[in-house]
C-alpha cells in the first residue's frame, strides 16, 4: 500500500523538478502562446504578485508563482488581450495560471492525481510580506523566463 509520506519521498528520489518545469512550459505555451525556459539562478524575482494553490490529500503542499507587476500584467494581456484592464483581472489571470500549472503537474504524476485535490487559487499583490507554509518539507524551485522576465515557481511539499 502506498502511504501519503511516500509521495514526499518520491519527489526527492525521482526528481520531480523537470516535471514541474514541463508543466509550467505547457501552460505558458498553450494558454499564453509563449515559450518559457528555465533561467539561470542569478535572476532575482521581485515578487509583487504571488499566486498560490494548495494541494491536499496524497500530495500535500502549496504551489506558488511569483513575478513583478509588469510581468503579471503581461501574463494577463497574453491570456486576455486588451480585455485585461484591471488589477483584479491581472490577479485572476495569474491565479488561473497557477491553478493550471498545479493541475497539469499532478496529472503528470502516476498515481497522484486520483488522490490529490487542489484549492481555489489565492493571489497576493504587494511584495512586503513574509510567507510561511505549514508544508515544511522539501521544496522545488525554478525560475523561468517569460518574454525575458523572470517568473519564480516553487512547490513546497509536506515532509
Amino acid at each position: 500500500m502506498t502511504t501519503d509520506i511516500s509521495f514526499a519521498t518520491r519527489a526527492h528520489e525521482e526528481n520531480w523538478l523537470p516535471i514541474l518545469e514541463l508543466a509550467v512550459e505547457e501552460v505558458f505555451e498553450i494558454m499564453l502562446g509563449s515559450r518559457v525556459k528555465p533561467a539561470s539562478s542569478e535572476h532575482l524575482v521581485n515578487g509583487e504578485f504571488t499566486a498560490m494553490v494548495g494541494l491536499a490529500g496524497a500530495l500535500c503542499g502549496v504551489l506558488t508563482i511569483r513575478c513583478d507587476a509588469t510581468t503579471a500584467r503581461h501574463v494577463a494581456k497574453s491570456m486576455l488581450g486588451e480585455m485585461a484592464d484591471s488589477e483584479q483581472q491581472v490577479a485572476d489571470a495569474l491565479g488561473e495560471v497557477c491553478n493550471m500549472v498545479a493541475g497539469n503537474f499532478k496529472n503528470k504524476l502516476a498515481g497522484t492525481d486520483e488522490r490529490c485535490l487542489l484549492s481555489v487559487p489565492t493571489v497576493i499583490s504587494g511584495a512586503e510580506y513574509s510567507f510561511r507554509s505549514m508544508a515544511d518539507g522539501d521544496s522545488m524551485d525554478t525560475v523561468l523566463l517569460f518574454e525575458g522576465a523572470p517568473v519564480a515557481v516553487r512547490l513546497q511539499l509536506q515532509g
Partner: protein
Amino acid sequence: MDKIRALIVDDSSVMRKIVERSLRQAGIELDKVVEASNGAEALAALQGNVVDLILCDINMPVMDGLEFVRQVAKVESAKGIPIVMITTEGSESHVVAALSAGARGYIRKPFTPDQVKEHVLPLLGKKP
C-alpha cells in the same frame, strides 16, 4: 451554423473570457453568453435563460461543477442541454464522475481552441 446561447461556469472571470474566445475561434457563432462563477449561480441563471450549451469548471466555491451537473439533471427545462466540463482535474475518476452525472464532454486545462472544437461541435450536431 445557427447562433447558439452558451452558459459558461467558472470561478475565474479570466477563464470565462478565454472559454468564450475559444468557442468563437472554434467557429461557433454566439448569440448570447451567460456567465456564472459557481454551480449555484449557474442553476439560478438557468431559471431565467434558455441556453443551448453549458461549459463548466469543476473546482469552484459554493457549488462545484460535479454537483452542478447532478442538479441540472433534475431541472426539467434543462434536460438535454449538453454540458462540457473544462477543468484542471484530469484524473480518470473525475472524468467518470462527470460523465456519469450527465456531462457529455470533458476538456482538461490547459486546452487549445482545437480541443474545444473537437469536443463541442459534435454536441451541436456539427463536424469538428
